[in-house]
């Protein structure tokens, strides 16, 4: 890990660790779940260049699976979350195997179509409870000892889950595997000509992204004790695109910032009802027009420009 990154992450983590003292923990957990979801999505769009428009299927389906496992089968919390993650990964293998054969708009449409099929299934299948969703999912003690009925305690568990997912993604994109992904993003024919089986790389990245989206969804179901159609609807797929673009596509911290911005807006502007969507739209347009790289992307770029200028200055001094 680069030294700069270590400092930044440590600072962010420290901030996240003290926040529950000032802010309602349930709200923070929601931000973290969506941040992890956006990070998973960002792995695909930011580093492989694949725009999935159906990520809600992993998020929402995992929420249903973990909710059902914990509530109806009486599984422990951690097993429920793992079951959700696993189900999302399997779904990712199936959806990915079909979708990665196409690129660009076709890829987006294939993922959207698959997500709608999953939505329809969740709408009709008896175990999801249809419009009612799965409600009153119990929060059983984690690993049999940690009492997570207290929101503040559970917040730290969610923070740990988020940190795990976040560092995993960081590790992946800085590995040789990640380098190949970036090569595919930049020039796929060239990666093929270099002898990489790009389909396998893309599928693996897709499954990884799906599993992490599932981890986020499964955790959210336990946090709010409810899994509903909202989580699996196409609007959710749109929301995660929005979070990633606002925060900064292809930046490590961008999705976290984007999720915090969008979830805060939905939370604090809730009194305006449907106007929230209009405000969201306005902010999206503004971001895309004025901050093309997203919030974090622009900050990183500003630092890079300064470093470059300084570099030039010192070079001139040397002359």
């Amino acid at each position, binding site marked *: 890990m680069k030294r700069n990154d270590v400092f930044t992450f440590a600072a962010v983590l420290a901030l996240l660790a003290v926040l529950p003292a000032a*802010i*309602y923990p*349930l*709200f923070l957990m*929601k931000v973290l779940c969506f941040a992890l979801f956006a990070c998973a999505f960002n792995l695909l769009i930011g580093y492989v260049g694949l725009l999935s428009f159906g990520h809600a299927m992993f998020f929402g389906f995992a929420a249903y699976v973990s909710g059902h496992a914990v509530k109806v089968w009486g599984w422990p919390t951690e097993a429920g979350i793992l079951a959700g993650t696993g189900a999302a990964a399997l779904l990712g293998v199936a959806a990915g195997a079909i979708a990665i054969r196409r690129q660009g708009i076709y890829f987006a449409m294939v993922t959207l179509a698959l997500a709608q099929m999953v939505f329809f299934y969740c*709408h*009709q299948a008896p175990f999801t*409870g*249809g*419009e*009612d*969703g799965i*409600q*009153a999912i119990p929060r059983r003690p984690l690993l049999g000892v940690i009492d997570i009925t207290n*929101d503040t305690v559970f917040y730290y568990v969610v923070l740990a889950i988020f940190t795990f997912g976040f560092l995993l993604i960081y590790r992946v994109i800085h590995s040789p595997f990640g380098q190949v992904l970036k090569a595919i993003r930049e020039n796929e024919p060239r990666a093929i000509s270099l002898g990489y089986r790009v389909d396998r790389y893309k599928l693996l990245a897709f499954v990884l992204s799906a599993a992490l989206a599932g981890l986020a969804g499964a955790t959210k179901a336990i946090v*709010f*004790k*409810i899994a*509903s*159609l*909202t*989580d699996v609807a196409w609007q959710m797929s749109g929301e995660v695109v929005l979070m990633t673009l606002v925060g900064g596509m292809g930046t490590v911290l961008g999705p976290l910032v984007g999720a915090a911005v969008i979830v805060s807006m939905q939370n*604090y502007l*809730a*009194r305006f*009802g*449907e106007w929230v969507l209009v405000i969201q739209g306005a902010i999206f347009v503004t971001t895309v027009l004025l901050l093309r790289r997203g919030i974090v992307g622009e900050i990183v770029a500003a630092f890079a420009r300064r470093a470059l200028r300084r570099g030039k200055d010192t070079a001139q001094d040397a002359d």
Partner: protein
Amino acid sequence: MRMKCLMIAAAACLAAGAAEAQYSNGNIKIGVMNDQSGTYADLAGPGSVWAAKKAVADFCKAQKCHDKIEVIFADHQNKPDIGAGIARRWYDVEQVDVMVDVPTSSVALAVNNITKEKNKVFLVSGAASSDLTGKACTPNTIHWTYDTWALANGTGNAIVKTGGKTWFFLTADYAFGHALERDTAAVVEKNGGKVVGKVRHPFPGQDFSSFLLQAQASKAQIIGLANAGADTTNAIKQAAEFGIVAAGQNLAGLLVFLTDVHSLGLKTAQGLIFTEAWYWDMNDANRAFAKEFAAANRDIHPSMVHAGVYSAVTHYLKAVHALGSDADGAKVVAKMKEMPTDDKLMGKGKIRADGRKIHDMYLFEVKKPAESKKPWDYYKLRATIPADEAFRPMAEGGCPLVK
């Protein structure tokens, strides 16, 4: 915003020390949650907030009341996860003592669970599901105005008895629609009628033509609409375009509100038969309430949901003042069940052990355009269903509180 909340809470704590009665945080905070801008905004929405405030004002006029009673509201957009999020925040952070209204059964069931978990009070007016006093009943919830069983019973009974023996159902394809269809079919068959067919339409639906043609082909006397809101009004409009009613089949709306009839217009809605708990043009007290309500709400006249909110909040305030405390939700509800209900809109009634509020229900028929004498003059009374027959017998609900 947060800071302000904290300051208000702190100020309230100081005030509570001085007051005699023990109200949590020194105030009584009523949270009205419903659909503020979507499909159900007119039948509940801002009108319910107005009704709750009106109930507080009338209560404080009639007797000495606690000096800090606050009404707040939020929009759940008909989504259970948004509703659950707001309910948790209200109970955890904003010190709400009682939640009121909450149309859309899925959201109401979510709030029902959370209210029990936090030991607060939940007064349902807008939601329909009879599960709220059945298998999902809690010691913290009272279902005030109507429910699916009462609607199915009232409408189904009346229509079969007046000769509508064969039925075809057009059902919204989700839990609520299925429940309404199941309850009505049971009533129809019990009275010697027959269900000749049914078709499920996607929710929400726009194009009902193929379903309506199936209904027409079934030759059933009655087409039962087991859906709500825009689905019902769209189906009725399209049925009128196909000339279904003109050809001799009748429509039975299983969940129709005054505001739906208003948006359909009498020409389309005439002859529709359905069950409701309250109508504004039945007596002077109702008319006076409606006049004030309409003046404050863009001329919309109050639906039974609004009247239910008024009635429920009034009774809640009586119980809380009798106890001198709003801290323990289950105790407040127990007190409410113990006291008979009486208010100017819904009259005298009582609350059963399973949380079901009992009162008369009415079977209405929509007037012909020629019969309507003034704006919003839409219903004529066909029958009154006495309180003891209007609701599901307690033993059949499967509520664990009933032993």
